[in-house]
Each structure stands twice: as structure tokens, then as C-alpha cells.
């Protein structure tokens, strides 16, 4: 391999976007730098950030890469990873997504679940294609459910606490369809739209010579089956029932039994009042449970990329949680490859099961005290948006943050002042 086909340095720029991810990887080759943007979105801006933050980040990306991106990786379809790709209809006031589009990335990498042709692979038996299709349709149904949930939330708001309502709204909005951004990404790549899965090519081979990029997730339907023996209740079918289309949308006064007699709104007989309140509370809790479940399912479509250059390894798992990781971690060869990771982008903003303990235990570069070659961790997050410490589901999860702090060089975007846009990390390769 000649010197010009190998990078000598990697710079990672972690932007402060609040609750979301935005990371720019710049590989320095002898002739020029090559830039890969990994995710760009936010669903909760940092305090005092000002409304134009995402646009400022987009402009900074444009500056940093001198008007040309080599690749964009979008780990999964959540708002906090792709809201920055949304375009505007107004050419005079371009949105962040228009800025990124103007950087003409050669390659766009997304999970296989985003592939519009997911179910037309002629080499696969129809049963598997059918399952694949059902899986993708299930994701669509979940987003349909998120929509109807937000409508129902509007009705229930009065009967529930503000904290619960905020949680529901936050997770619900995360899971909406985000169409402008999704459509922008579908047509953005100059050369290659890569839809990847565990073990597939990453699509980055042509733009990053001399860098090995392994795809460790998401697993395909068949791969998931390998580690799961029994399946007779089907999650996709469940989501299909709850939200396949607008029929499931519940609105006050409509639903089932249109002609049946019911009490006029506001005239609840005394004997039913206690129970009516309880049932409303049960419903709010159930909605939260459902929306969390669908949030997790979407997180588990995250692309997990392991970059290796000059013998150093950099791990970007998006929001993958344990169910996504389970397949990769079931393979001894992959566990071996993960041992000497040098940089770990903390999964899912530091939630309780997106840095599986068995993954964390593999990292050999952990150490209780600073030393050269110590594991570097980057946590892009904003506390108080997701989960609650009462249920031990807060994001970022405190015991995890404590572990990251004591065993690695932890950087969290929350440590930046309101005026600081990013922090750079450099690695000699």
C-alpha cells in the first residue's frame, strides 16, 4: 500500500447538539482530508443555545470539510440523528439539510431497514423476504402509532402529570416519520446509497482507502433468528395491529360502537369516577410503555461501525441497544476485534442498556488512571429529556456515567459552555 492511500491522522469533531448526535470524522490523507459525517440531529437543544444552533453546526461542517463531504452515515431514523438533514422549501432560506446536500457526499450509509428495495432481493427465499418486508412494515406501523399516540396525548394531557406528558411527547416525536429528512437522504448520495447489515460491506471502501470499516449491526432478520430459537408471537404483527394506519387513531367520541348509548362528556356517575381516573392513569402508563418499546425497536436498527486505521479502532454504534448488539456479541471473532477499541462513541446518549455490560467488559484499554492509550469515550447527550431516575431509566444513566468517568477519558457534550459549538479529538494513525 502506498503512502497516499493511507490516512496519517484522524480528527473527530463532536458537536454539541443537546439530545442528539453529530460527529464529523476527518481522515488526513497525504493529498487531502476525507470527511465522514456520522449522524446530524437533535430533539432537545442545549440550554441557552439559541434557535439557530443546528444551522450554525451545518455551516461549520461545510467550512470544516471545505465544501465537500465524502460520506454521510445515518445510524437510524430517529429525529435526534437526522433532524439536521431536513430541507426547506424556500431557496432563499436554506435549512441545515440543504447545506449538507450542497456538500455532495459520494456515499450515504444507512441500515438495511431503510432500503426501499429491502424486499426484492432475488437471491433470498420468499419466506425470508416476507419476514423482511414485515419487519420494515412494522417500523412504519410504529411511526403510525407514534402519530396516533400524540393525538391521543392531546386528549389525555389534562388527566396526567406534566412530567409524564412531557416524556410521552418527547419519545413520541422522536419516532415520527421525519419525511423531509428521510427523503433528502434517499437522494443525496452522488455515487452510492449503501444499506448495510452485520457483516456486509460498509460502502465506505472507495472513499476511505486504507481504513477497514466493519459493520457490526444491525443484524438481518435471518441473523436475529440464529440467536433466538422460538418465535410465535410476532412483534411486527403487534405494531401492525396498533398503528398500521389512521384507523387506529382514537379521537374523543369516536371509536367503536358509534351508535351505542354513552354518558355525555363530563357527566360521569358518582360510582364510576374513581375508576375512570384510575383507568386514565393506567392508559398513560401503557402509552409510555408502548412508546418506549417502539423507541427501542427503532434504536435497534442502528448501524454499528467499527473503523480501523493504523492499528487503532474507533467504534460508532449509534443508538444500538442490547438486542442489536446481541448478534455481534454472540460471535467470538467479533468480541476479539472489539477488545482494543480506542475511541467509543457511547451508545444511545448513555442509556441503561445501550452499552451492554458484556461489551464494556471487552474493552482492554479501560483503566482506572490516565495513561497513554487509555480508552477515550464521547457522550453526546442532554440530561432530563429521557427516562427518570426514579425508575432507574434516566439518560444518561448515572452508574454508567460514573463507570465511564472512572475507567476512561470521558468527554460529554454537556460539559461545553453554551457558546462552544464542538470539541476536537485527534489521533495519530
Amino acid at each position, binding site marked *: 500500500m502506498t503512502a497516499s492511500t493511507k490516512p496519517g491522522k484522524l480528527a473527530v469533531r463532536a458537536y454539541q447538539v443537546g439530545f442528539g448526535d453529530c460527529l464529523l470524522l476527518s481522515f488526513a490523507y497525504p493529498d487531502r482530508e476525507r470527511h465522514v459525517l456520522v449522524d446530524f440531529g437533535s430533539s432537545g437543544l442545549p440550554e441557552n443555545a439559541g434557535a439557530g444552533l443546528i444551522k450554525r453546526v451545518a455551516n461549520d461542517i461545510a467550512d470544516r470539510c471545505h465544501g465537500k463531504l465524502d460520506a454521510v452515515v445515518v445510524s437510524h431514523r430517529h429525529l435526534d440523528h437526522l433532524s439536521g438533514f431536513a430541507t426547506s422549501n424556500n431557496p432563499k432560506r436554506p435549512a441545515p439539510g440543504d447545506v449538507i446536500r450542497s456538500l455532495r457526499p459520494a456515499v450515504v450509509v444507512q441500515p438495511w431497514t431503510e432500503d426501499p428495495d429491502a424486499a426484492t432481493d432475488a437471491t433470498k427465499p420468499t419466506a425470508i423476504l416476507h419476514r423482511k418486508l414485515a419487519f420494515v412494515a412494522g417500523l412504519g406501523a410504529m411511526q403510525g402509532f407514534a402519530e396516533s399516540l400524540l393525538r*391521543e396525548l392531546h*386528549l*389525555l394531557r389534562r388527566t396526567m402529570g406534566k412530567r409524564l406528558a412531557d416524556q410521552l411527547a418527547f419519545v413520541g416525536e422522536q419516532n415520527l416519520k421525519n419525511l423531509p429528512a428521510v427523503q433528502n437522504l434517499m437522494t443525496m448520495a452522488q455515487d452510492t446509497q449503501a444499506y448495510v447489515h452485520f457483516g456486509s460491506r460498509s460502502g465506505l471502501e472507495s472513499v476511505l482507502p486504507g481504513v477497514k470499516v466493519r459493520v457490526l449491526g444491525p443484524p438481518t432478520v435471518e441473523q436475529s433468528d440464529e440467536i*433466538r*430459537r*422460538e*418465535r*410465535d*408471537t*410476532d*412483534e411486527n*404483527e*403487534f405494531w401492525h*395491529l*396498533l398503528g398500521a394506519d389512521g*384507523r*387506529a387513531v*382514537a*379521537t*374523543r*367520541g*369516536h*371509536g*367503536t*360502537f358509534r*351508535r*351505542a*348509548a*354513552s*354518558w355525555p*362528556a363530563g357527566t*360521569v356517575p358518582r*360510582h*364510576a369516577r374513581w*375508576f*375512570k381516573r*384510575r*383507568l*386514565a*392513569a*393506567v*392508559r398513560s*402508563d*401503557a402509552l409510555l*410503555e*408502548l412508546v418506549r*418499546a417502539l423507541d427501542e425497536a427503532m434504536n435497534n436498527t442502528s448501524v454499528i461501525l467499527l473503523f480501523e486505521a493504523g492499528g487503532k479502532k474507533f467504534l460508532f454504534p449509534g443508538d444500538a441497544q*442490547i438486542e442489536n448488539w*446481541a448478534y455481534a456479541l454472540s460471535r467470538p471473532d467479533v468480541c476479539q476485534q472489539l477488545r482494543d477499541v480506542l475511541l467509543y462513541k457511547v451508545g444511545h446518549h448513555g442509556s*441503561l*442498556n445501550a*452499552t*451492554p*455490560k*458484556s461489551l464494556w467488559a471487552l474493552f482492554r484499554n479501560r483503566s482506572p488512571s490516565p495513561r497513554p492509550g487509555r480508552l477515550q469515550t464521547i457522550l453526546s447527550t442532554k440530561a432530563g429529556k429521557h427516562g427518570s431516575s426514579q425508575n432507574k431509566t434516566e439518560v444518561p*444513566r448515572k*452508574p*454508567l456515567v460514573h*463507570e465511564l468517568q472512572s475507567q476512561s477519558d470521558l468527554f460529554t457534550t454537556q460539559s461545553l459552555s453554551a457558546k462552544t459549538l464542538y470539541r476536537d479529538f485527534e489521533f495519530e494513525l
Partner: protein
Amino acid sequence: MATPLSPRTRTLTVIAQDPSVLRPDGNILTARVEVPAERLAPGPWGHRVHVIDYDASTGRLYRPRTDAADRDPYEHVRDASRLLDDPCFHAQNCYAVAMSTLARFERALGRRVSWGFSGHQLKVAPHAFLDANAFYSRRDEALMFGWFHSDTGPVYACLSHDVVAHETTHAVLDGLRERYTDPSSPDQAAFHEGFADVVALLSVFAMPEVVAVALGARPGPRRDVLPRSALTPDALRRSALLGLAEQMGRQLQNVRGAALRRSALLEPDRRLYRAPEYLEPHRRGELLVAAMMNAFVQVWAARLEALREIQRGCLDRERVVQEGADVADRLLTTAIRALDYAPPVDLQFGDYLRGLLAADREDQPDDRRYLCRDALERTFRAYGIDPAAETSAAGRRSWLLRPGGVDVEGTHFASMQHEPDEVFRFVWQNRELLELSDDAYTRVLSVRPCTRVAGDGFVLHETVAEYVQILDLQPDELRSLGIRRPAGMPDDLSVTLYGGGVLVFDEYGRLKLHVSKSVRDAEEQSVRLAYLAAHGGLRGPGARRFSALHRRRNLARIERPAERW
């Protein structure tokens, strides 16, 4: 039949299994169930069950019928849409199935049964929300059934006999054994689910209408007879168990799981009980269901062998159906009575099997007629569940039959039948004999006199009392008791150990049986703590446990607490 069978009961029309199970003429298969006669208020609103038809997703509160206090307005309705489109029929359906399930428990146990909360009336919401879920909630004193749209129209969980019976069983079992929802072992976590399915399915098979449909209508000249080749245990497994499973509404599979289908398809294998995938509560519960339903077809087939042929090689179809329903009903009684012989805490499937065998022996001292005991023991063992030993590994007597040396000094027979304080005095006086722990908190949970009719027609009077022992410990105290401290257990976490027992007194007030789990059984407590530590259960269960449990079944989620922070 418009007049009640007897003045103590009345009959109400229900959907026999669910709206997908049809009569040969294509109408929905309905049945009439017997419920205790009572003066109902509109709801229906009775002394134990109160239907409140509020839908939290749409904000509608449906009005109940006001004209149905003592009649069955749906007796002659054949038109499916008049049943499906009328929320008041749904309300009646829930009321009748819940009430008949409760009555079934009371009949088997020979005493009144309380719900798992302090009130008397279980609230039932037939259309609680738009969700493919149904559950019992102790905190809300209620059963809640969801509804949802499918490609073929709306689907209502409250119209499925097995779903309503399942949820009612959770509520009844919670009243009988309040500590079975404690975090303990994979078996105890699975028991509520498996037992609820067992009761639901046996209740359904105890209806001859359903058995007839499950066996499938054979058109043609020989429709009144069945060949012997169709009546072997294996053939019945395929025709009756799988047959009904296939007819059940498919859309409800997310709500009810697939226990019946699996009980027909799951080949017996002793390794399953120890297999990692059978540690998930809903999966593990299916083992219990499979063992029970296979015992059902075994006993049924054995009974048919003894029947006279009406043609060469053929049995009367009607008779085959009736035998099936009888056997299901008998096993249901045994399944319920076994609870009285099961320890009140830390239940293992083997303890329950031992209880089943004891309940059956009590009822039918001679097993030659029904062959139930033999079939139960065989099928449970075939799935890896062996009856619990009478002495635990640590040498404690967990099954003490008619012990000598009982001290009854100062206790009064009459009070012993209903007063917890009197029974506590008995427990305290005999703490050595009963092998109780001195330093644990001890409480008598219930004392219930029962009147049961045994299989031979004799009336049996017994008193059943239940007590628990609770020991709160700091992690560093475990070692002195010989209990292994699980790896990674935080120092600041106090641990609670449970023990307890059931005391059965005969009609003369003599202690007949003591079934117990010792709070100081080092081996069993070590195993329990290790399991809880590995499964995140040391800090206790969340509220609305059944909602969460059923949701995991919905989504086929596997819990991996060891991977969490």
C-alpha cells in the same frame, strides 16, 4: 331453558370461546354459563363483579342496560352482529365469565374466596383502551381488556372466554396467595401465568359445546360416531387441543399467547425445564400448561378405552364429548384444590405437582377409576417437573403429614376455624415442631373453614390457614446463616427472605398437614438470591406487574438485566 337450574344459580349467554369459534351452521358458538343468582344493578353490577365500561382511549363511558337485572336478554340472539356490535352484551359476557370463574374456585375450594385487594367488588372494563393487551391490576382493583382494529374488523379481548377467565384467575390467585407475585424464582414468576392459562383452558374444555366443535364436525353418514383410532392420546392432542387452537381468533394471539397450541405441539422433553429459553416467565408457564393439557388428553383417552363400542371399532360421539368435558372439569377442580397444598411463598412447579397429587388423592383415594394421578405425574415428569420431596436438601421437613406431639394446650377449636390470632397462638406454641425461625417476623395471613364434597359423595370439613415468615437482613449477615451472597450485590441493599406454610386442620381441629418453605433453608434461599441478583429482582417488582408481564409476551421480549447499568 328459561327457568334457572336451581334458585341459587342462573344462566347467562356468553360466547363459548371467542367470536372465531363457530357452530357448524356458521353462527358464533355461544354457551350458557351458570353464575350465582343475585339481584344485579345495571352494569352488570353484582356483589363481586362490577362492570364499568369506560374507554380511556376514546373518553367514552357506555351506558349499561337497565332492563337485565334478572333475565338473559341474549338467550335467543343468533345474529352475530347483534352480539358483536352491542357493548352491553360484551359487559354481560365479561360479568358472566368472571363470575363463573370465581364460582368455580369457590366450589372447588368449598369456601368463599377474596380478591387480592381489600375491596369486595372487582371492577371490569370491557373496552378499557385501544391496545392488544389485557391484564389484572391489584392497584386498580380491576380487570382491563383492550380492543383494536384488524383487517377483518374490530377485535375485542373481552369476548374471549379464555382471556377473561385467565385475567379473573390472576385476580383470584392473587387473593389466595398474595405472595406469589413476589420476586422469587423462575417457577414462581411463571406460575401465575401458567396457572391462569390452565384454569382458562380447562374451563373452556369443560363446556361440551366447545369440545364438540374442537373435535371437528364430520359430515356424512357416520357423524354420530368416532372411530377408536381417532381417540388415542396423540390423536386427541391433534384434534382437540390443536383443533381448538387453530380455530381461536388469530388476531388475539398477541393478547393470549400460544399456550394451547404449544401444549399440543411441544414434544415432552425433560431438558426443557432447565433450558435457558424456558426461564422467561411466559415461556416457562407454557411448560405447566403443556403438562396439564397432556394429562387431560391422557385421562380422557384412558376413560374412553373403557367405554362400550356402539358399532364395531366406534364410540358414540356425544359420549366422547361428554367424557372430555367431565375430565376437564375434574382436572380443573384438582388444579384449584392443589393450591391449598402448595406453600404460600417461593413456589416451585414440583411443589404444585405434589399438591396436585395430594388433592387428587384426597378426592379419589382409589385412582383406578380416573387414573388422574398416574397421568399427572407421568406428564409433568415428561416435561422435567418432578414432585417436590417431603424433606428439602437441607434436611427440613417441607411436607409434614399428621405429626405427633402437637401442642394444642389453650387453643380453642371453634376459634381456630376463623381467627388468625388463635391460629397464631397455635403456630407460636408449635414453632419447634413446625421448624420456624425464631428471629423472623411471623404473620398468619388467612384462616378459612372449608366444606368440600369428595368424589365418593362424602362431605369433608377442613380448615386451611396460611402464615408467612419474613426476615430482613443486611448482605453481611447472610454468611452467618450459611446463605451465599450473590456476586455484585450492593452493600446498601437489605435483602428480604420469605418463608411460610399452610396448615390444614381436619374436622376435629387436629393438624392434618403442614406444607412449608423455611425462611432459613440456606440452600433454597441461596438459589433464590442468586436468581434475583441475576435477573434484577432484588429491589422488588414494579406496580402493575401483569400489565408488564403480558406486554413482554406481546412483544416477545427477552429480558437481559445483566447487561444493564
